[in-house]
């Protein structure tokens, strides 16, 4: 009863999503967004009409103007600097716009261009000094703040009366200042366009990545060939341009030049930047954060002003909010990865019925010591041969953990050579009709080695699932494969949540994290055909040529999936409840199938699989070396048929040569054995097996 409830709770409650969501980069913005929501709710309750259309449009106008400057500041902060001169630049650009319009009487487009150019020039001064002359950003912009402000004061002294006397009346200018399109102020529209571009720029474009890289580590960025100085200079220039856009809208809206224009603006902007969660250390930040920060600051300022709070208190509150937000933000950023590592691993209920007995004399699984008499190939010379395969010239191929495909030459398999170097751990292997060797490489995908020893990538991504939070398009652990008559390749991916070396964590979860993928060489597509499998592993085309037999290692079962014919898409269980963990499946000479058992079930783990809470706590509190593991120190090979009958079993009980067996191939009366944690390949003489059996010939016909 309790077990049933537990099973339901773990089947329908997606524990694993929390960790996946938290590991998304955008959750870094979570804290500022929550602060924004709280402030919005508080203010809308305190101030009637705070969220009305008119109120929002008004806020939107201001938000747009400051927002541009915050974007510029964000850019500069992300690249690892700071720009204190934005307030003075803002004032100068405001003056420039109004001077061109009111004094020089330029047309509006020319005014816009001139103002932007003015902003760019002012920013470029910062950029030159900081980027190329490598002055300190803080000091430099502090100095330009003073210089620009003095220049503004001097100009103001000469021209303020002239500017104030003119009353330009251009519809286009008025539109810039107060225009509305479908209820949205013009400034907001432009801001949206710039913000969207900024987002794409920072997250998708090469220069944007350069900016983040420089902010993250200037030296590394330089070493990897990024033009650090130019990029920094351009960032300050961009900051100047963005400030001038803000100033342009400000000039068009208010049309005034005064002594207090832009005074203290840098503090407001900086507050918004930090509040949004853009780290002053550089390298971290986004447009969304800049926007959220801007809104928080504006809401607080406007809200408090509406509530007739005096200016001093207003600034105190702002500072207080900044302090609290910065503290929370730092704690959150610092502990985020720790929280994720705590919640990402989410074991689920996995109930298995008691396994069949393996006691001597108990049936097909009865233990014996027949594998004691193997001859060893490559002892101590090959490491981690997960799969072994023989070509039709009797040469033996095996993977190694150094990322090589090794070849042992017939007839005595004493001579070993590197057949091809790939770079990742080779797992399952199969020959196609044209003698190409297809190999699943853990962490890399599906690769092909031509008879000329050329290594080619076949595929390393599949279609992304609709409902997955993690991006599951990349292949993490392609495991074993087989090739259908029409050339389609079916391969298993053991887990989509972990890397190859983390397979025990997947075993701890015991969730269906794996899938089976089909690569079609006829049109070059890769599609996922089956999902939610418990560590799918061995794959073998069944006798009808329309289906595959596949092993689910942690599911302890063999299943069959039809990809063609009348039963297309169906999955049936062939053998359930195996006493061990099935691995690779391969053809036997008598038309049955060999199955490698990488390890055997133990009652302690079977029980733990029914107790997800226990496993979760174990995962957190016990180091991985001490975890309760699937026992893969004893394995065996069994023979079964498509009806699910187990016909025979071969054991190495003392575990001297083959403690774990991950694969086996029959070839000319011998069985060749591989194991991923082993340093040898075993060769076992099969009594009564067809001495002429070659898998390649059986599969593709005796050619040539």
């Amino acid at each position, binding site marked *: 009863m309790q077990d049933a409830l537990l099973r339901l709770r773990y089947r329908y409650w997606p524990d694993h999503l929390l960790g996946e969501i938290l590991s998304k980069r955008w959750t870094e913005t979570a804290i500022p967004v929550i602060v924004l929501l709280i402030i919005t709710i508080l203010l809308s309750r305190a101030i009637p009409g705070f969220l009305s259309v008119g109120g929002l449009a008004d806020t939107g106008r201001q938000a747009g103007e400051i927002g541009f400057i915050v974007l510029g500041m964000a850019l500069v902060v992300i690249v690892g600097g700071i720009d204190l001169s934005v307030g003075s630049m803002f004032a100068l650009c405001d003056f420039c716009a109004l001077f061109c319009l009111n004094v020089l009487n330029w047309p509006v487009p020319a005014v816009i261009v001139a103002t932007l150019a003015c902003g760019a020039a002012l920013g470029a001064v910062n950029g030159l000094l900081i980027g190329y002359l490598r002055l300190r950003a803080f000091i430099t912009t502090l100095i330009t703040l003073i210089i620009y402000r003095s220049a503004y004061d001097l100009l103001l002294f000469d021209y303020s009366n002239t500017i104030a006397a003119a009353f330009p009346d251009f519809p286009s200018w008025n539109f810039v200042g107060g225009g509305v399109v479908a209820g949205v102020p013009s400034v907001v529209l432009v801001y949206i366009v710039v913000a969207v571009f900024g987002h794409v720029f920072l997250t998708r474009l090469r220069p944007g990545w350069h900016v983040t890289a420089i902010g993250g580590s200037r030296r590394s960025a330089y070493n990897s060939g990024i033009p650090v100085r130019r990029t920094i200079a351009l960032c300050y220039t961009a900051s100047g341009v963005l400030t001038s856009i803000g100033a342009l809208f400000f000039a068009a809206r208010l049309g005034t030049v005064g002594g207090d224009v832009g005074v203290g603006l840098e503090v407001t902007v900086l507050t918004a930047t930090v509040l949004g969660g853009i780290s002053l250390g550089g390298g971290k930040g986004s447009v969304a954060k800049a926007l959220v920060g801007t809104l928080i600051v504006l809401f607080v300022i406007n809200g408090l002003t509406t509530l007739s709070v005096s200016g001093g208190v207003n600034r105190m509150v702002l500072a207080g909010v900044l302090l609290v937000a910065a503290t929370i933000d730092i704690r959150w950023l610092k502990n985020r990865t720790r929280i994720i590592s705590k919640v990402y691993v989410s074991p689920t209920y996995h109930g298995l019925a008691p396994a069949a007995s393996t006691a001597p004399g108990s049936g097909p699984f009865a233990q014996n010591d027949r594998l004691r008499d193997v001859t060893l190939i490559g002892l101590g010379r090959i490491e981690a041969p997960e799969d072994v395969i023989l070509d039709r010239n009797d040469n033996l191929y095996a993977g190694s953990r150094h990322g090589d495909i090794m070849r042992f030459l017939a007839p005595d398999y004493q001579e070993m050579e590197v057949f091809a170097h790939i770079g990742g751990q080779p797992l399952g292997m199969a020959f196609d009709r044209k003698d190409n060797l297809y190999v699943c490489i853990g962490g890399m995908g599906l690769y092909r080695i031509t008879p000329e020893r050329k290594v080619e990538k076949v595929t390393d991504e599949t279609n992304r699932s609709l409902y997955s939070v993690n991006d599951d398009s990349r292949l993490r652990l392609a495991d074993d494969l087989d090739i259908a008559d029409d050339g389609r390749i079916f391969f298993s991916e053991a887990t989509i949540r972990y890397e190859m070396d983390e397979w*025990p964590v997947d075993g701890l979860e015991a969730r269906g994290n794996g899938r089976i993928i089909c690569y079609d060489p006829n049109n070059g597509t890769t599609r996922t055909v089956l999902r939610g499998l418990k560590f799918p592993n061995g794959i073998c085309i069944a006798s009808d040529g329309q289906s595959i037999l596949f092993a689910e290692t942690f599911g302890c079962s063999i299943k069959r999936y039809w990809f063609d014919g009348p039963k297309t898409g169906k999955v049936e269980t062939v053998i359930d409840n195996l006493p061990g963990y099935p691995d690779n499946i391969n053809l036997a000479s008598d038309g049955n199938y060999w199955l490698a058992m990488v390890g055997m079930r133990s*009652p302690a783990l079977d029980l733990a699989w029914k107790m997800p809470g226990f496993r979760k706590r*174990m995962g957190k509190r016990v180091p991985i*070396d001490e975890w*309760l593991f699937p026992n893969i120190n004893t394995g065996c090979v069994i023979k079964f048929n498509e009806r699910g009958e187990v016909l025979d079993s071969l054991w190495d009980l003392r575990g001297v040569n083959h403690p774990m067996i991950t694969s086996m191939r029959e070839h000319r009366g011998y069985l060749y054995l591989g194991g991923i944690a082993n340093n040898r390949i075993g060769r076992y003489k099969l009594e009564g097996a067809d001495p002429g059996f070659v898998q390649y010939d059986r599969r593709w016909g005796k050619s040539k």
Partner: protein
Amino acid sequence: MIAALKSFTDRLLGRGDATITVPSFDGALKPNQILENAEIVAQFDAPEDLATDGKALYIADGAVILRLDGAATTEVRRFDRPVTALCCLPDGGIAVALDGREVQVFATPSAPAATVTFSDSSMQAINALAPGPGKTLIATDGSTARPYRQWVHDLMERGRSGRVLVLDPASGSIRTLASGLAYAFGACAGGNDIFVSESWRHRVIAFGADGSPRTVLEHLPVYPSRLSPAASDGFWLTAFTARTQLVEFVLRENAYRRRMMAEIDPEYWIAPKLKSGQSFLEPMQGAHIKTMGVVKPWAPPRSYGLVIRLDADGVPRYALHSRVDGVNHGIVAAVEMDGALFAIAKGPGRLLRVRLAGIEQELRG
């Protein structure tokens, strides 16, 4: 109230008593393979305890007591129940515990009948005997809840019912020196004190002449067992099995432990053992994976072989090991005789001999 709150937060945060950390084999306990490479003197079916009168070695093997002179073993006496403890008395007699429930004292090893028999209904798991002060006999009773052979049940039930008894052969009286111990297993008199191993608390305690206890040695990475005097001052402390973080963790996981004890054969529990690696049905831990044909000796020990040499104050001087990749595990008894240490490895059923000459210089140099 505060204690309850503390134990709650400890459990929540995995602190204090709830920590599952295990000290490492370090300092005087630095690993070696001396026990693993020790000479195998003899092989027995069910060796349990050792004793010596200085001239010969007596071995309790199942229900039989054997005498070892040089290489020859002779049967001294045979009982109808398994012998769970054995000791030689200073007056030339021997004392044996039968099935943990009865203690018999014989005037000589081959005396026809027992001079005194202590049998008390509360005796359940007498697992060690030692001569005490003033012709008394000290006995440790591991648990009053479980018989001796079910020591692993007592551990997994977090047994706290061990006792130290003082038996007086002159009057036939039984005095309880201490009770409520987390498995008392092994005792030895030294100076005016009585040293006792408290296995489940991983420590050695000493009772003074007035009966007051003090902790001599604590935070051991193993479960200590029988003690015997060393020839030159000090003691030999055996450790019948070692601790692992997984077992410590399971000891704190009540639901899992209950179900494990109810549903699984004790052979395959997540629990310490006297020998391991016999079956794939045993639980396997991460570091146990045989890689490139090798089992790592530093993997978490499901079974282990260890004898620690203590000085007269109970401070470890050096230790003899048989590590995880070895077989001489489950050292339940060790006695020194003729410049050699004899030890019973109960796991493989072996009697081992280690020559002690120069060993301390080698290990501490």
